[in-house]
């Protein structure tokens, strides 16, 4: 499951456009994988590591 899928599992109400406006998932092609580079959603808090691991 990708980071994107995990976040959608936690917050199914998110829209696709949220991921190129208020949320930025990023991969720097350095082998370290995807991560949350920006989380500026106006109502939903940034998911915690525990939430992501449980998703």
């Amino acid at each position, binding site marked *: 499951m990708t980071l994107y899928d995990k976040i959608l599992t936690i917050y199914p109400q998110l829209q696709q456009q949220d991921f190129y406006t208020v949320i930025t998932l*990023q991969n720097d092609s350095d082998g370290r994988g995807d991560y949350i580079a920006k989380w500026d959603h106006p109502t939903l808090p940034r998911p915690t590591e525990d939430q992501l691991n449980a998703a």
Partner: protein
Amino acid sequence: MTLSGDGTITGLAAGGLPNATVVQADLATGVAGNGPAFSAYLGSNQSPTNATYTKVQINTESFDTASCFDTSLYRFTPNVAGYYQVQAACRISSTAPSTYVWAIYKNGSNIAELNVATTPASFDNRVIASLISMNGTTDYLEFYCYCSAASGQTFNAGAATTYFQAFLARAA
């Protein structure tokens, strides 16, 4: 070195005049500088995670006049301060309708972005361009792309389709 009355300079040592003695106003019309310039491209197809800004693995150089492009970090770090004309293209494809984004990052931050929605599933190839001030020491540029579709998303390789280029347009 000899400076003739007609403005001709002869007998310059290797390397020419020191930078500090030549300013833009000294150059005649049509005289281009020899600042850093590079062109590089994606050597093999890349499969990004959907909905994730992913650095395009620009790993093959067409030219790199000042050895300022790093094909391991996919990063341009020019060694002359000034204003750089930068352009990048990527052919992004997917097998589901998608939003595609092309973005130039400076020092890890998105500073120029192009955003296109495709319906139905397809591919799209756009060029993003920007004029960017660089300090000539630590500033660096990278190229990221984004594909929202979770099906068949690919950055297509090739010198003609997915490339990253920049050159010094004006010294600082």
